[in-house]
């Protein structure tokens, strides 16, 4: 078998001679092997690759249980093995047993001969199996770094400790004081609690309305115009990393490829990493069984607790080559010109802008009640709240996906906190604390709205728990936080991150009191609400509900989702679901703070075409 694999693939007609040249050139520039590029940059499907080699007499072995020698593994660097989809395992019969996808990869064969001073004994294996095994065997130092790097470098910003001792003392002292107060003077203590809660709600409502109005003012403002996108020169675009952390998302892999293929960005400049957990065979198999070319590279994240998305992203970061980096979920459909827009905006913005957040919205908004409500909420959050925060220069809690970073700054910040279950929100605050800024862009990524109530509550409980974690982390030293992000930022942080969880916790209690007030005995409750407190509480109830509903209506009106506008009225019911999730989140914060409540994707039956921006 003297013919090389690249020639074989051309002879079999799977790769055109033109593409052959492109692959070789790209291989020389990037240091990645021919097979790696061919299989991961959309040139050939894994099925066809296997077919071609099998026809030529090669046999693909199952290698996951192969014996290995740590001494042999020590001499190979994971990144090199990953780039060449090859791995030396052990010495046997004076030969190095080496796993290879492309047995004609001369560079790697030479590496084996030179490093071990022996001839290789090649076992042909699927590239994904080799990737899986090499990350499992060699990835330990990277996965440890992914988990402990932030904790080591900036322990004050790590959520590895949920409650610090001073925080515990504060919380228990407060509970103690309230308990003593209740025993000594139930009425006055209750009145004081009512006053505090009412004031808090009042300020939170006014703040949110103000933010929405500020945000909606910039409705017509286009951070990047179509003209500017047209002026972007393809040859000057920098490498762009897209991280796709997935877990058991086998149903979404095909959709994912369609969505990624429609991104308007030079193929070779895209560095797309599908981050698959070591134990996630389902997704790995789905990728293996694709009958069309994949446009992403698989990175297998070795097992290590906590098993969270930020840990996977941190791990993927070690293998990323982009100047810029973004995260998408498997089901995301970004505007096709989003990456170009981001590059154009980064060029325009001052250097201290290190992150750009795109708007998120839902493609399956009309599926059921829940997806409609979710769309209302996201429209309000990303179209009004975040631009409002941006305008007022208040820390922006980044959305879960579609936040685009400058890679060097992200690394400098210590990347994501693997112990925080809303690592994105935390990172936004950390960036502000370091003097960096986040911008908002006029581009949308369409996601799949959760259409199943229990699944929704699980997802939301994680978000709210994460907000609580983020709040606790940054409020360890309030004075220092004020110094870092300013008083305005501090207030914004408290009323946006802190208040969000608190309001959902308090909301059902107040609603229960109100219903009791209506249904049962007026006079008993009236004693706990002196005139002006009752006045404030009624104002909050009426005006607060009306305004929050109205702001939701404004947001969908802006998006021209006219059919959703009346659904905003159902918000008080939807907020009760938030409250259920908030209590679940609070419970988990105490009992299992780092547990990543997995959201099931792919439940939607709605198929949305790619959002092509013309």
């Amino acid at each position, binding site marked *: 078998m003297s013919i090389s694999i690249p020639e074989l693939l051309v002879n079999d007609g799977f790769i055109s001679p033109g593409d052959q040249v492109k692959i070789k050139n790209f291989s020389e520039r990037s240091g990645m092997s021919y097979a790696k590029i061919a299989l991961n940059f959309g040139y050939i499907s894994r099925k066809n690759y296997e077919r071609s080699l099998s026809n030529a007499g090669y046999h693909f072995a199952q290698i996951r249980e192969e014996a290995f020698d740590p001494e042999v593994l020590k001499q190979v660097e994971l990144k090199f093995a990953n780039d060449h989809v090859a791995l030396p395992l052990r010495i046997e019969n004076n030969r190095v047993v080496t796993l290879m996808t492309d047995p004609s990869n001369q560079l790697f064969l030479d590496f084996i001969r030179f490093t071990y001073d022996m001839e290789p004994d090649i076992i042909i294996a699927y590239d994904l199996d080799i990737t899986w095994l090499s990350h499992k065997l060699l990835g330990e130092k990277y996965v440890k770094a992914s988990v402990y790097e932030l904790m080591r470098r900036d322990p004050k910003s790590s959520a590895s400790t949920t409650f610090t001792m001073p925080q515990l003392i504060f919380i228990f002292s407060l509970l103690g004081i309230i308990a003593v107060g209740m025993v000594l003077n139930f009425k006055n203590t209750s009145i004081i609690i009512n006053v505090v809660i009412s004031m808090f709600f009042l300020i939170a409502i006014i703040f949110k309305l103000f933010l929405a109005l500020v945000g*909606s003012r910039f409705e017509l403002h286009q951070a990047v115009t179509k003209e500017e996108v047209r002026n972007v020169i393809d040859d000057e675009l920098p490498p762009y990393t897209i991280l796709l952390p997935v877990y058991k998302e086998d149903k979404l892999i095909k959709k994912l490829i369609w969505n990624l293929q429609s991104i308007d960005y030079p193929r070779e400049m895209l560095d797309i990493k599908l981050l698959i957990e070591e134990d996630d065979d389902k997704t790995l198999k789905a990728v293996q069984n694709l009958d069309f070319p994949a446009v992403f590279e698989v990175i297998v994240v070795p097992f290590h607790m906590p098993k969270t998305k930020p840990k996977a992203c941190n791990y993927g970061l070690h293998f990323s080559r982009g100047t810029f980096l973004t995260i998408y979920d498997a089901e995301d459909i970004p505007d096709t010109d989003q990456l170009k827009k981001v590059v154009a905006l980064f060029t325009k913005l001052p250097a201290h802008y290190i992150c750009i957040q795109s708007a998120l919205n839902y493609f399956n908004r009309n599926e059921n009640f829940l997806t409609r409500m979710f769309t209302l909420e996201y429209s309000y959050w990303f179209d009004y709240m975040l631009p409002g925060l941006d305008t007022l220069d208040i820390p922006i809690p980044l959305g879960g996906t579609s936040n685009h970073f400058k890679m060097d700054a992200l690394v400098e910040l210590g990347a994501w906190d693997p112990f925080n279950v809303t690592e994105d929100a935390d990172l936004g605050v950390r960036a502000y604390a370091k003097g960096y800024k986040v911008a908002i862009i006029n581009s949308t990524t369409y996601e799949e709205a959760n259409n199943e109530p229990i699944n929704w509550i699980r997802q939301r409980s994680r978000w709210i728990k994460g907000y609580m974690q983020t709040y606790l982390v940054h409020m360890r030293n309030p004075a220092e936080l004020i110094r870092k992000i300013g008083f305005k930022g501090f207030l914004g942080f408290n009323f946006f991150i802190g208040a969000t969880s608190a309001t959902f916790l308090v909301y059902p209690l107040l609603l229960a009191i109100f219903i009791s007030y209506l249904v049962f005995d007026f006079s008993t409750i009236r004693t706990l609400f002196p005139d*002006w407190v009752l006045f404030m509480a*009624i104002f909050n109830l009426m005006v607060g509900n*009306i305004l929050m509903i109205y702001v939701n*209506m404004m947001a969908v*009106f*802006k998006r021209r989702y006219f059919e959703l*506008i009346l659904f905003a009225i159902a918000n008080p019911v939807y907020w009760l679901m938030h409250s259920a999730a908030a209590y679940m989140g609070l419970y988990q914060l105490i009992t299992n703070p780092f547990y990543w409540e997995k959201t099931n994707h792919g439940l939607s039956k709605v198929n949305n075409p790619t959002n092509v921006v013309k």
Partner: protein
Amino acid sequence: MSISKNQYLFIITVVLAIYYLAVGIYINHLGYYNQESIFYIEKTKIIFEGLGNRIKVMGLTAPLLPFYCSIIFSSINTFWAPLIASALGTAAFFYIIGTALSTRVKNDDFYLGVVVILFFLHPGILYAATSGKAIYLVLIFFFLFFFNLLKFYRSNTTFHVSLASISLVTLIFCDYKFVWLCLFFIPLVLVITLQSLNLGEKESIFRLFLSFNSPSLRRKLVSKTFAIYIILFILPIASIICYKLLNLTHASDLNYFIESPYATWNVLVDKLNYDMTTAATNYQLPELSVLVSAKVIYFCPLILVAIYLFRESTYQALTVLTPFAFIEFLHMKYDKLYLTYEYYLIFLILALLCLIFKAQTVKNQKIFKIIVLVTVLAQLYTGYIFLANSLIHDEKAFITTLVKGERNPDQNESMEMAEYINSLPSNAHVLMDDAVAYPVAAFTNNIKRLTLPYQDMFLSAIETPYHYDDYVMIATAKNPFTGYTQLNNRYIPLIRIVNSGVNYKRVYETNNWILYKIITIQ
């Protein structure tokens, strides 16, 4: 050092505020009070000093926003609070108009000059600024409503339509009658939506034809029209529903805030005003329906200029014409009431707004400016004439006091009675009904010693006054409000029958009020 335009505007605003305050305090010293400001003063006193169900007074006193604005300044001086609020509010209104003008009409101070003249000299603006009435807030929010609506026509953004909606809510909570303005926007919204659709046709009627004949456009038209209705009207509707429910839960009456004399000042005042004028020996003809619009044009000819400016855009011209339909409707709906000055003033504001948007589009600026200037000067005269010949007592009294500088005796009697109550022993309690006696209550030093209807014990006190109070104040038969209170000249004989062991001694008397001392003889 050069002064920027904004600083320039700010300085004029401050001068205006001082000017309004000075005029306001001057006429106040001449004894001018109007029913509305006295009503706010009395309710403010109840909130801060009263004993009893203050939440009802706090939440259900109407119009709500002017009352709250007055409360803000009550820490400075309770009696001047409405006046300070209206003076500062009107000055702030000037600043809002000035800013809007300077951002749209650049390098031409003529129109700003016109606004300055109007704000310094127009009797109506002076009335709004120095009377302590809610007119200033009505004008501000009326301006903001139309301002944002016209901005929405240009930008088509949610921001402006939602601000218009918020302004409409606040406007309604300054004067509930403006709720009827919504009625005339119902057909208008369809035209607005038609205009915002991306169609090649320019004429509204053809756009409508196109939209109705294409299923997708029809669907879009319907959903967008509905959405604009919602975004524009849901806030006012929801606010009114909630407020009415609050009235129901706290006062057992959905319309308490507009129908009860305890909640709002104008229920009785308006009725009385109409009755007195129509029943007077010198009978004055009530306003005729067809003449109201003509009167508006006489009062504010500038509005004709404004309509002319919008002649090229049907829906914008219709928007400017909407208030005409509104006041004609008001005149029909409330046929027993006179249209107050406030409803004429809104046209002056609307005309200014149109100038802000369109003045610079006129090619021949010289002639246009002459027309505007002449019209504005004419309006200063008509503004005076309207006040001087007003059928509404408060308005006429204002201009008479201001121009003649003579003392206004309207509240002398209330002050006199209040003075007597103040001189009573500090532990003496007086039963009175502030539905009609709120001027007396307002001038009383210590509202704690009054037993008023906001207190739960009021009904018991009426039944058995000797258990709760030492004095009772009743309205005499001459008092024009005597039919609207239980504490009138029929009360004492009645209560004597119920309990003959109690005697009532007349201790002080004015034309409209009698104060009885309750003497228990058992």
